[in-house]
C-alpha cells in the first residue's frame, strides 16, 4: 500500500489521512465499499421542503426506537396486580397491574424517565402525522407513478403498521384510558361473524381482560411490528436511492435528470443536521408539554371509565366510524350479526385502502406505461387532486366524529347534532369537496394559461393617449413560461374501432367502456383547461401587444 502519494482528486491535499484510507481499503477489500460509494457518495438530491417530510418520518422512527429501547429497560409487561407505593401521592395503596406500576416508576422515580416516555409518545404522534403529510405530498404531486408504485405501497404499509404499533404501545401502560380502548377492541373483535368469540378468547387468553394481553401486546409492540417496519423502511430507502428523487418541473429539469445538491457534503450535512433538529424539537416539546399522564387516569378497571375516552389521533377516524354508526343488529336462527360494530370494522380498512389503491386505478385509466420523474402540480391533475382532497375531508369528518364529545363541550353544541352531522357528512362532504376542489384546480389552470399568454399583472396602470386605462402586463421569463407549460395533458382514451378491417364487429367489454368513461371524466373538456400552445402564444405576443 503506497498510500504516501495517493493523489486522490476527491480528497483535499491538506486533509490527507492515510490511516483513514487504510481502513477504507481494508473495508473495500471485504465489503466493496468503493463501488457503493462511487454510485452514492455524490448522489444528487433536489431541494424542496416537502421532500423532507419523509425525513421527519425516518428520524422520528429512529427516535422512537432509541427511546423505546430505553423504556424496555424499566417496563414490566405483566398484569399481576400489585399495590402502588411509589412517590405519586394520589395513587398510594391502589391496586394496579405491574405494567401500570412500572410506568409510574418510570415517570416519577427514574430520573429522566418521564422525559424519555414523553419523547417516545410525542415522537410517535409526530411520526404518524408526518407519514400522513408525506403520503399526501406524494399523492398530490403524483410521485406514486411508475416506477414508484411499490414504494408507495411500502409507505402505505408503514403508515398502517405505524397505527397498530402506536395502538399496542398506547395500551401497554394498562391505564384507565388505554384499557377502555382495549375493551373497545375486544368488542369489535367479538362482532366478527362466526369466529369473533374465538378470536377474542385467543387474543386475550380467555375472557377480557384476563392476564395476558399486556405481555402479548408487548411483544407485538416492541418486536413483531417494529421489526417488519424496520425492514420496510430499509426497503423504502433503498428504492428512494435506486429510483433517484423526483423533482418539480423547472428550467434544466427534465424527466431524464435530477438536479440538486450532492449527498457529500451538502445533503449529508443537511440531512444529518435535520435528524438533530427533529430530535431537538421533539425533546423540547417533551420538556414543555405533557402527554398521556397516566397518573391522572389511574389504573385500568373494567368497571370504571372517564368521559373523553379517545384513542391517539391516528386511530381517531376509526373511533368516529364506530361512534356514528347506527345500532343495527340482526338476530336470526340463534345467532347475532352485530352490524353496528362489524360494518365500521369493515369500513375502517376500506377508508385506508381506498387511498392506497388509487395509483393503480389512475395508471389503468391513463394506460401510461412510461416512467415519471417530474412531479405534477396538483392543479394540473384536477381529478386526482379532487379525489385526494375528498379523501382528506372524509378522514377529517370521521375525526370530528371521533372527538364529538369534545366538539360538543368546546363549541357548546349538542353531541347528538354532531353525530347526525357526521352521519350525513360521511356521504355528503367528500362529494362537495370533490366538486369544489376540481373547480378550484380548473380556475388555477385558467389563471396559469392567462399568465402564459398575457403575462404577469404588473399592477402598473397606464393611461393611453385616447384616455383608456390599461394595466401593463409583463411578459414572463422563459424560465417561467417553460415551468408553466411543462406538464403533459392526456387525451381521453376512446374505445377503439368496434369494427375491424374485415368488417367484423367486436364486442366492447364492460371494463373497456368503464375505462373510457373514467378517462373522459379525467381528461375530458370538463376536467382540464387546454394548456397554451406555442402558436397561441406567438399569435398574441406578435399581435396587438398585451391586454
Amino acid at each position: 500500500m503506497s498510500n504516501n502519494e495517493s493523489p486522490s482528486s476527491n480528497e483535499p491535499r491538506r486533509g490527507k489521512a492515510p490511516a483513514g484510507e487504510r481502513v477504507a481499503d481494508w473495508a473495500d477489500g471485504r465489503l466493496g465499499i468503493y463501488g457503493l460509494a462511487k454510485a452514492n457518495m455524490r448522489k444528487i438530491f433536489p431541494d424542496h421542503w416537502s421532500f423532507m417530510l419523509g425525513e421527519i418520518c425516518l428520524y422520528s422512527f429512529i427516535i422512537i426506537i432509541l427511546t423505546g429501547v430505553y423504556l424496555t429497560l424499566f417496563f414490566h409487561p405483566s398484569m399481576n396486580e400489585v399495590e402502588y407505593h411509589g412517590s405519586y401521592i394520589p395513587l398510594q395503596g391502589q391496586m394496579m397491574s405491574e405494567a401500570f406500576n412500572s410506568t409510574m416508576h418510570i415517570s416519577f422515580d427514574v430520573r429522566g424517565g418521564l422525559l424519555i416516555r414523553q419523547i417516545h409518545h410525542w415522537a410517535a404522534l409526530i411520526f404518524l402525522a408526518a407519514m400522513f403529510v408525506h403520503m399526501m405530498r406524494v399523492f398530490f404531486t403524483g410521485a406514486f407513478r411508475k416506477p414508484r408504485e411499490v414504494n408507495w405501497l411500502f409507505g402505505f404499509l408503514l403508515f398502517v403498521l405505524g397505527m397498530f404499533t402506536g395502538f399496542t404501545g398506547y395500551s401497554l401502560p394498562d391505564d384507565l384510558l388505554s384499557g377502555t380502548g382495549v375493551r373497545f377492541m375486544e368488542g369489535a373483535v367479538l362482532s366478527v361473524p362466526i369466529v369473533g368469540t374465538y378470536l377474542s378468547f385467543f387474543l386475550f387468553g380467555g375472557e377480557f381482560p384476563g392476564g395476558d394481553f399486556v405481555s402479548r401486546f408487548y411483544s407485538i409492540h416492541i418486536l413483531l411490528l417494529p421489526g417488519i417496519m424496520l425492514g420496510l423502511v430499509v426497503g423504502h430507502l433503498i428504492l428512494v436511492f435506486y429510483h433517484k428523487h423526483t423533482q418539480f418541473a423547472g428550467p434544466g429539469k427534465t424527466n431524464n435528470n435530477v438536479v440538486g445538491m450532492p449527498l457529500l457534503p451538502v445533503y449529508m450535512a443537511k440531512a444529518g443536521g435535520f435528524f438533530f433538529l427533529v430530535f431537538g424539537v421533539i425533546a423540547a416539546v417533551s420538556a414543555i408539554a405533557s402527554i398521556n399522564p397516566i397518573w391522572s387516569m389511574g389504573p385500568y378497571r373494567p368497571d370504571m371509565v372517564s368521559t373523553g375516552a379517545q384513542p391517539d389521533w391516528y386511530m381517531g377516524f376509526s373511533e368516529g366510524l364506530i361512534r356514528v354508526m347506527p345500532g343495527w343488529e340482526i338476530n336470526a336462527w340463534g345467532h347475532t350479526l352485530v352490524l353496528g360494530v362489524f360494518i365500521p370494522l369493515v369500513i375502517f380498512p376500506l377508508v385506508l385502502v381506498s387511498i392506497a389503491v388509487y395509483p393503480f386505478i389512475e395508471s389503468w385509466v391513463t394506460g401510461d406505461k412510461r416512467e415519471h420523474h417530474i412531479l405534477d402540480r396538483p392543479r394540473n391533475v384536477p381529478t386526482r387532486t379532487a379525489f385526494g382532497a375528498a379523501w382528506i375531508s372524509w378522514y377529517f369528518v370521521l375525526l370530528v366524529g371521533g372527538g364529538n364529545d369534545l366538539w360538543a363541550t368546546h363549541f357548546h353544541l349538542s353531541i347528538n347534532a354532531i353525530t347526525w352531522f357526521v352521519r350525513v357528512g360521511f356521504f355528503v362532504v367528500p362529494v362537495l369537496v370533490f366538486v369544489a376542489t376540481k373547480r378550484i384546480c380548473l380556475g388555477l389552470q385558467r389563471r396559469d394559461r392567462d399568465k402564459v399568454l398575457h403575462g404577469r399583472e404588473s399592477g402598473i396602470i397606464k393611461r393611453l393617449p385616447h384616455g383608456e386605462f390599461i394595466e401593463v402586463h409583463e411578459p414572463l421569463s422563459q424560465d417561467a413560461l417553460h415551468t408553466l407549460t411543462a406538464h403533459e395533458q392526456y387525451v381521453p382514451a376512446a374505445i377503439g374501432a368496434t369494427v375491424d378491417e374485415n368488417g367484423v364487429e367486436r364486442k366492447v367489454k364492460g371494463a373497456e367502456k368503464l375505462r373510457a368513461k373514467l378517462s373522459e371524466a379525467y381528461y375530458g373538456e370538463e376536467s382540464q383547461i387546454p394548456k397554451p400552445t406555442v402558436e397561441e402564444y406567438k399569435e398574441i405576443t406578435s399581435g396587438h401587444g398585451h391586454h
Partner: protein
Amino acid sequence: MSSQDIPEENLPAEQDAHGAVGVANEQDPFADPGLPPHEHRVQDIDEQAARRSERVVAFLFTVSMLATVGFIASYVAIPHDRAIYVFPIGHINALNFALGLTLGLALFSIGAGAVHWARTLMSDVEIADERHAIEATPEVKAKVLADFKQGAKESALGRRKLIRNTMFGALALFPLSGVMLLRDLGPLPGTKLRHTIWSKGKLLVNMNTNEPLRPSDVAVGSLTFAKPEGLEEHDEEFQTEIAKAALMIVRLQPDNIKDKRELEWSHEGIVAYSKICTHVGCPISLYEQQTHHVLCPCHQSTFDLSDGARVIFGPAGHALPQLRIGVNDEGYLEALGDFEEPVGPAFWERG
C-alpha cells in the same frame, strides 16, 4: 475565494440572460432554457461574511456542548420530585423541564450548526445527474429469461411431475403446524360470555362503602354502583369478573317505569342494570336523573332506564340487561338470579 474589502465589486454582474427579452423571437418560447447559471451567495465572494458564518456554526456547536453539560448538571443537581412554577406552563417537574430543554437545545444546535454550515459555506452549485431507465435493456432481459429456462430445464422440475407435486404438498402443509401451535393461546369460549357470578341470593354490595345495600339507602335520583357479595378487589379473578358483573343501581318512581318487565324485576322502583354497555363494553354510567337516560362516554349510546333500558340513540344494538332483584330476610337487596341474557357487547353466538 478572494477576500476583498469592497465585496460589491466582486459581485457577479446582473444576469441578463434572466430577463424575458427576446423570448418571442425564438422558435419555441416554451422550450427548456436549461439550468440557470449559478449565482453566488454573499459567503462565496465575501470572506468576512464567510467568517461570520463560520463563527455562527462554531457558536452553535459550542452552545450544544454547553447544553450537554447543562443536561448532566441538571441530572445530578435537581431532585427528581422538585416542582417549579414556569409561566405560562404551570407547576411542572423541574427535572423533566431542565433535562428536556437542555437535551433539546444540545441536539437542535448540532442540527442548526450543520445546516447553517451546509447552506452558507458548502458549495451550492446545483448539479444535474442523469437518470437511467429502471427497466432492463432487451438484451439483459433475454439473457435472464434464457438463464432461467436453462436452470428450470436442468432442475427437471417440469418433467418430473411427481417431485413437483409432492414438494408443493409438503410446503403447503407444514405451516399448519404453526397454526396448530396457536391453539393454546386461549380456552374456547364455551358459554363463558353468557354467565356472570351473580346468582340467587347474592347481596348487592355498594362499591363505595363495601357494605351490602338496603332499599332505604337508595334514594330517587341517586346513582349507585354495586358488585356481587364476595368479590373483592384483591381476588385473582377480580378484573375479569367485574368486567361482567358490574351493576348500576338507580331508583325511579314506580309510576315512571314504563316497561312492565322492568317494574316486575325491580324492588320498590329500585332497578339494577348491567354497567357494561351492549355496544363494545364500556362501563356506561352517565346517568341523567331528570330524563332517566344513561349515556355511554365512549360512543354515546343512550339508554332509557325508565323504559327497559332500550336504546334511544347511538350505536348500541340492544337494551342493557337487567338484573332481577329483591330483598332478603334481613332487609338487604339481593339478586334473584343471574342476568337472563349475556352482558356486554353482542357476539355471533348470542342469539
